Each structure stands twice: as structure tokens, then as C-alpha cells.
């Protein structure tokens, strides 16, 4: 039977994905999973309670407002008005989406098209590239480079070269995607670094898509700055946030885009033609959780700050364990990931005859022989920089104590088994 049907051009080459392989692995309970970025700690109890309450209300099991449940957009506008120091209209300046992932998609589909170039900073959360390609545009990569000749102790050592960056901008540049705090390195862009980016955006009349899902997870000595608050940036920036990362509920898949009406309205058009509305009871529960924390934003017990403190001690523990095993972690200033230089272990994988980058081979070897999983960093790079990043792997540390205990056992015994 004749059958001519293949995929459309827009998804050509976009079918494969690092997660397909590595999340399958995670399903094996004998593996200590520090790979995919999902918490195995419990969300705060009031968040779960609010969902139970919401689901018991009949009308909350039916459709709500397409662009965002009224009580949720109201709560988001209050929280972010406070953070940004400007008025935010809940109906026109906010769109609620299916995760920050959905916000990235809506933003890119709304504002990016064939003929456009989009600057992506490497390493990058892996969906940026396929989403830009699906919109018909060209990704232009620029790597973060390690300041101290490869001797990196902190995420702050990884920086953009301003001249390099400036060279990437041209008349076709429609947007730059910024991710701060950064996944996978954990870098928290400083005021000065953001100013360099802002200057270029303004000079070239470029949009900024700012992925700030880890905005609350910044560690001592660091401050999360929203690029949209810099002069000249509000009108050209879409800022993206995530309930999953804010409240440790990645499975709720709620995110939001915040920005000026003249940009958000186009995201709303995409949304009304893609999935129309997000689940009601989850949005209601999230709204209530936000009100609880909004009221205590001056209080250190606010979950936005308490989670960060909890994660900082996990970060420090993780770093200590890795160092003891002879690995070189890059201490992140934010986020819940840590990248590690594994070349110091000199694990010889040349016998593994695949054309895969070293880090893919290392992670597969580590999963098989050490029962510990991570994610290879070259999954987060464009084709030109794979060599630069293939000695790094990424660990996720938003894990409960028993998971970190299990990781500790593996890492403490690491040297005993090798060499």
C-alpha cells in the first residue's frame, strides 16, 4: 500500500533527545539517580494540601481562563511586582503555560521565525536549540569559557567574552536566550555581565528570552538579578518562571511568561492555538501556595528562601564527596546542578569503540560499573564545542538525604575499586 506520509519539515532531525536514553536508566531502582533534574524530596505540605482543597471544589474541575487562572495570575503579579519593582498587569503581562518548557515554546513560536538568528549561550538547557530550529530560525552559539585555564572551582569562573558576544549580534539577530541561574553550570550572572548583554540587546534592538526557573535558588554571596529590570530591557524581555522549580513540583507542569503586553499578547495567541488552557485545580493550588509565601516574603521561613538554604547544604555535601573521590566539582552559585571534571580520574574508555563524546561514554560506564547516574555535558552544547565540554558531567543534588547517602557510599568506594 502506498504511503507517502513522513514528518513535516519543521521537525526534521528533532526526534532524538538525551533524556530518552538517560531517563530510561533512571527507572532502574538499583541506580543512584543524580541525573535528570527532578527532586526526590517532598514538596512542602501546604502545597499538597492546597491541591486537595482545590480538587474538592466542583467548578475547579472545569475549564478556567485560557491565559491563566485569575487567582494565579493575580498572585504572580503581586509576587513579581515586588521583585521587579514595577506594576505588572495580571491579564495582559502574564501567560500561564505548561511548565517553563511551554513558555519557552510559546515565546519562540510567537516571536521567532525563518530568517531569524537566535543567540544561545553554551552550555544550554537542551530544548533551546530544537525549539529555535522548529521555528525555522538559526541558532548562533557562544560558549561560556573557563577563566582560569580550565582550573575551575566555581561557576563564577565561567564567563562570556564580551567581544566574542558582540560579534554574534547582527541585523538578523531576533533574540538572545539567557538562563540565569544557569543550567547546567549553576552560574548566576552578575549585574555587570547582564549589562553587557543588555547593552547589545538595546544596540541591536534584540529581544531577550530570560529563562529564570531557578530564580530562588541562589546561594550565599549571590543575588539573582532580573535582566528585565535593567534600563531599556522591560520592553524587550520575556521572563520565564516555573512552579516545578519554585515549589519542587516538577510534575505539576506549570510555568509562566511575564513581560510587556506588546510581547505577551503574541504568546497568548500561540497558547490559544496550541493547548488553550492549563489544568485548573493545579493553578488554583499554586495560587494559594503563592499567597502563603507572598505574605512572608520578608520572613526567612518563606519557602523561596528556605529551599535555597536546604539546597546549599546539599550542594556543599555533594562537593565534598566528589572531591574526596578525586573529582573536580565546579561549585555552583545557584540552581541545583553541579558539573564535574572527570578527566582527573583518567578512566580509559578508548576501548569503547563508539563515536560518542567522552562524557557520554563515561556516564554509561559509571552507570554500569558504579551504579551512579549523571548527565553528559556535551548534551548541552552545539556541535563546535563538544570537545570543550566532553570532560564534564552534570549531577543533580536536589535529592533527599538517603539518596545522597547512597551516592556517598559509591563515591567513598570509588578509589578502592579503580586503579
Amino acid at each position, binding site marked *: *500500500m502506498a504511503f507517502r506520509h513522513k514528518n513535516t519539515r519543521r521537525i526534521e532531525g528533532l526526534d532524538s533527545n538525551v533524556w530518552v536514553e538517560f531517563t530510561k536508566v533512571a527507572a532502574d531502582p538499583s541506580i543512584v539517580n543524580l541525573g535528570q533534574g527532578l527532586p526526590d524530596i517532598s514538596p512542602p505540605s501546604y502545597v499538597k494540601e492546597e491541591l486537595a482543597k482545590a480538587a474538592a471544589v466542583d467548578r475547579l474541575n472545569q475549564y478556567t481562563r485560557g491565559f491563566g487562572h485569575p487567582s494565579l495570575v493575580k498572585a504572580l503579579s503581586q509576587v513579581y511586582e515586588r521583585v521587579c519593582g514595577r506594576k505588572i498587569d495580571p491579564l495582559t503581562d502574564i501567560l500561564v503555560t505548561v511548565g517553563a518548557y511551554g513558555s519557552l515554546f510559546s515565546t519562540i513560536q510567537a516571536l521567532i521565525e525563518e530568517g531569524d538568528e537566535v543567540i544561545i549561550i553554551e552550555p544550554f538547557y537542551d530544548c533551546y536549540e530544537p525549539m529555535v530550529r522548529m521555528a525555522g530560525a538559526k541558532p548562533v552559539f557562544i560558549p561560556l569559557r573557563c577563566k582560569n585555564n580550565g582550573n575551575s572551582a566555581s561557576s563564577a569562573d565561567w564567563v562570556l567574552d564580551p567581544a566574542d558576544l558582540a560579534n554574534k549580534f547582527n541585523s538578523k539577530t531576533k533574540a538572545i536566550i539567557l538562563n540565569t541561574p544557569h543550567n547546567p553550570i549553576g552560574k548566576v550572572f552578575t549585574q555587570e555581565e547582564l549589562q*553587557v548583554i543588555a547593552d547589545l540587546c538595546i544596540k541591536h534592538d534584540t529581544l531577550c528570552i530570560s529563562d529564570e526557573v531557578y530564580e530562588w535558588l541562589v546561594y550565599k554571596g549571590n543575588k539573582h538579578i532580573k535582566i528585565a529590570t535593567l534600563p531599556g530591557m522591560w520592553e524587550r524581555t520575556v521572563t520565564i518562571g516555573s512552579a516545578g522549580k519554585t515549589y519542587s513540583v516538577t510534575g505539576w507542569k506549570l510555568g509562566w511568561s511575564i513581560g510587556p503586553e506588546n510581547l505577551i499578547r503574541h504568546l497568548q495567541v500561540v497558547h490559544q492555538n496550541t493547548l488553550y488552557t492549563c489544568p*485548573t485545580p493545579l493553578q488554583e493550588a499554586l495560587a494559594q501556595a503563592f499567597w502563603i509565601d507572598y505574605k512572608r516574603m520578608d520572613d526567612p521561613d518563606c519557602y523561596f528562601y528556605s529551599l535555597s538554604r536546604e539546597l546549599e547544604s546539599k550542594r556543599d555535601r555533594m562537593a565534598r564527596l566528589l572531591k574526596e573521590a578525586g573529582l573536580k566539582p565546579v561549585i555552583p552559585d545557584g540552581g541545583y546542578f553541579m558539573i564535574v571534571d572527570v578527566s582527573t580520574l583518567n578512566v580509559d574508555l578508548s576501548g569503547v569503540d563508539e563515536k560518542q563524546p567522552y562524557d557520554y561514554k563515561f556516564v554509561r560506564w559509571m552507570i554500569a560499573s558504579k551504579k551512579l547516574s549523571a548527565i553528559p555535558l556535551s548534551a548541552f552544547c552545539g556541535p563546535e564545542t563538544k570537545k570543550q565540554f566532553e570532560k564534564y558531567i552534570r549531577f543533580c543534588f536536589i535529592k533527599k538525604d538517603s539518596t545522597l547517602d547512597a551516592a556517598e557510599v559509591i563515591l567513598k568506594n570509588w578509589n578502592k575499586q579503580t586503579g
Partner: protein
Amino acid sequence: MLRRAGSSLRHFLVERKSSAGYSLCSREAKMSRPVQARRLEGIDKNVWVEFVKLAATYSKVNLGQGFPDFPAPDFLQEALKRALSEGTHMLHQYTRAFGHPPLVKVLAQIFEKVLGRELDPMTNVMVTVGAYQALFCCFQAFVDEGDEVVVIEPFFDCYEPMVKMAGGTSVFVPLRPKAPKDGKLMSSADWQLDPAELASKFSERTKAIVLNSPNNPLGKVFSRGELELIAELCVKHDVLCISDEVYEWLVYDGKEHIRIASLPGMWDRTVTIGSAGKTFSATGWKVGWTVGPDRLLQHVRTVHQNSVYHCATIAQEAVAQGFQRELTLYGKPESYFVQLPKTLQQKRDLLIQILVAVGIKPIVPEGTYFLVADISEFKSDVPEVPNSDEPYDCRFTKWMMKNKGLAAIPLSTFYSEAHKNNYPNFIRFCFAKEEATLKAANDILQKWKKEKTSS
């Protein structure tokens, strides 16, 4: 000056000193093109956005937007409660991207039953954020620039903008009403495709046909003969079928919902779409699915993984439990799939009575929870406006909402631009409502009728 923001900001000059010490003046717009992507052209209007706003302000009795005002079934609410209290807290974290394993497994079991073929839950089923997102993924996966998609009018309004956004062209073919037998009310079955007309819509550019059975807004349940006609054309022209079957369980008068994917030659070229929102009266949960052959679903998966990736875990867990219950009760009287259409049929019949009593002529729907009716009797209150941009039924429903507090949807919503004035006297009612709501609608209509007779 921001080229992006349109003319209102073109005169706004930004001047600031950068860290390098020189002042930066934004320049004249380098491009005259707008900030938004061209794929948004012509798809920015959406009747529901406006309608929901109006209904929130004016309507006392809302028979407009399609959602139940009665509760979701107890067993579903209990399933969610159980998941929250007894389930692991990992239900609040990401699940499998293409569908929570318990849900795809039970969906495969249910659809194996109804399609009469073996299904692999991992490759023949994909979960989406409502049937709406399933439709989006299908159009994005299969419709390229230059492709044509056959759309049967009247149609659920999102098909047209989704085809457009994918760069395709919708080719419309109407269901045409035949006069009912003497003395009988018109039925949705009386609205039919003309076979020659349908055949003429297929060309070498035709990529797919969208089928919606049971049909929103008419409530038509396509017969085996009608589906065979469509199937023949699909096979002959090697065309895909996107089959929107969200109302699959809501069929009345003992009618059978036939799945086109089960017809000869159709499984390999059909993606069947379903909805937990419609199946379980929980539209706010936004859980839908696609069922089809792996060689089609693989592309639907690619779109999904590059757009939303995962759907909410806990909603999927609860829906899976709902389906488990239905699987064990399949065909039995306590099955929700048996109970719900029974209840809705009674509501349908009540609404029919209400409308007939005031002279509004209903088209009796064979399925769905919608009913289209002819409001000619009440036209005198809303005079025609010659050369108006707005179709008459739109003006009528807006007037009715604002002045009588009764909300319904104009039928022109479900027609292409060129055909919006074809049926000016028809509006759509949703009868998935508590009896009290339907009685309140009756009060409004009775009062209105009295005012007309006495004036």
C-alpha cells in the same frame, strides 16, 4: 526606539550611558516588520476569549461554552484524593514524557477492546494536555506549507487556525441539511455530506481530513456508510485522517459510535484523539490522548517533546484510576460510560421540550452534549443590520446574553469566513448542565416568549 513595539513606541527615544562611557541612542526602526512571527497571521482572533469574558459579566444561565456545571464523578475525585494522600510524593514530579505508564497501559487496554486490535501502550498511545494539544501536535507533525486539509463544516473552531499556523490551507466541505420527515423534528442525522462534493475536495495536495464524530456543534454521529465514504477517499488519495472523537461515549438513542480507525485500510493512516475532560466530565484537568500506529505517532511524539514535553503527573494518575474502574465495569449498568450518556440523553430531551414549547426549533443531536436550534421565532427583538460585518447569529447571541442573561454560541463560530452567513438563525446550546440550570433557562425563555406575545 523599539522597532518591535509598533507605532505607539516609535517616538520613544532611549538614551543612556553604558559602562564604556558613551551614550546609546536607540535608532530608527531598521525593519518595518512586526515583532511577531508570520505564523500568527490571521489566527489572533478567538471567539472563546471574548465569549468567556462576556459570559462572566452578563450571563445568569450559561448554556454557551462546552463544560458540565455538574460535578465530575465521585470516583474520579476520590482517585485524586487517594493519589494525594496515599500516593508517593513522586507523583508531584515528572513522569514519562509520552504518558504516565499506568495511564497509557489502561488506555491501550480500553482501546484494544473498542478497536479490536492489539495495542502497545508505549508506541500506540501518547498523552497530551487535553485533546486540544493532541490536535496541535497532529497538525504540526503532518501539515506543511502548501498542504491542504479537508475540514467538514460546521467544525470545532480551532481546526482552521491550527491548519493555518502549520502553513496549510483548509478546504471546507459542508454538511447540508435535508428536510426532516413530515411532523418530525430535524435530527443531526439529516445533515449530510454530498459524496460527489466531498470527493471533489481531495487533490494531490490533500494531506489530511479532519473528522469529528460525534460532531461538535451539530451532535451528528457519522454512520458506517458515511465513514466508509470518507475512508475510501482517504485510501484512494493516500490521505491521513485526524479523527477527533472526544465525545465518543456520548451517543444517544442506542446509536453506535463507530471508530474510523477500525475500518479497512484506515488504522495505518488515522490518529484518533480522545479526552478525559469529556469522558469524565472534568474539562479542567486537561488530559487527552492520541492513539495510532507507531509510524504516525513517532512524529506526534517529536512535536510533543519539543513543545510541552511532559503532562501533569497527578492528573494522569487519577484519570488512569478512573479508566481502571471503567475497564472492570465495561458494559455494565454502573459504568460511567453507560451512566453519563443516559443522564445526558434525559437532559437533551428536557432541553428539546423547553425549546419546542417556546417555538425554538431544535436539531435533535445523536451525540455530544450540544444542540443547535433555529431561533427565527425570536428574531424580531434583534433586527437585521444590512451590510453588517457581524453575522446575525453573533449579534443575536450577544444581545440575548446582555438582555436576557442567557448564553449560547452562534453557529457561525463553527464556519469558515466565507460561510459565516450561511445559517444566520442557528445557535448552539450546551446541555451538560444541572436540571436547575436547564429549568432556569426555561424560565428565561418562557418569560421572553410572554413578552413577545403580549407586546
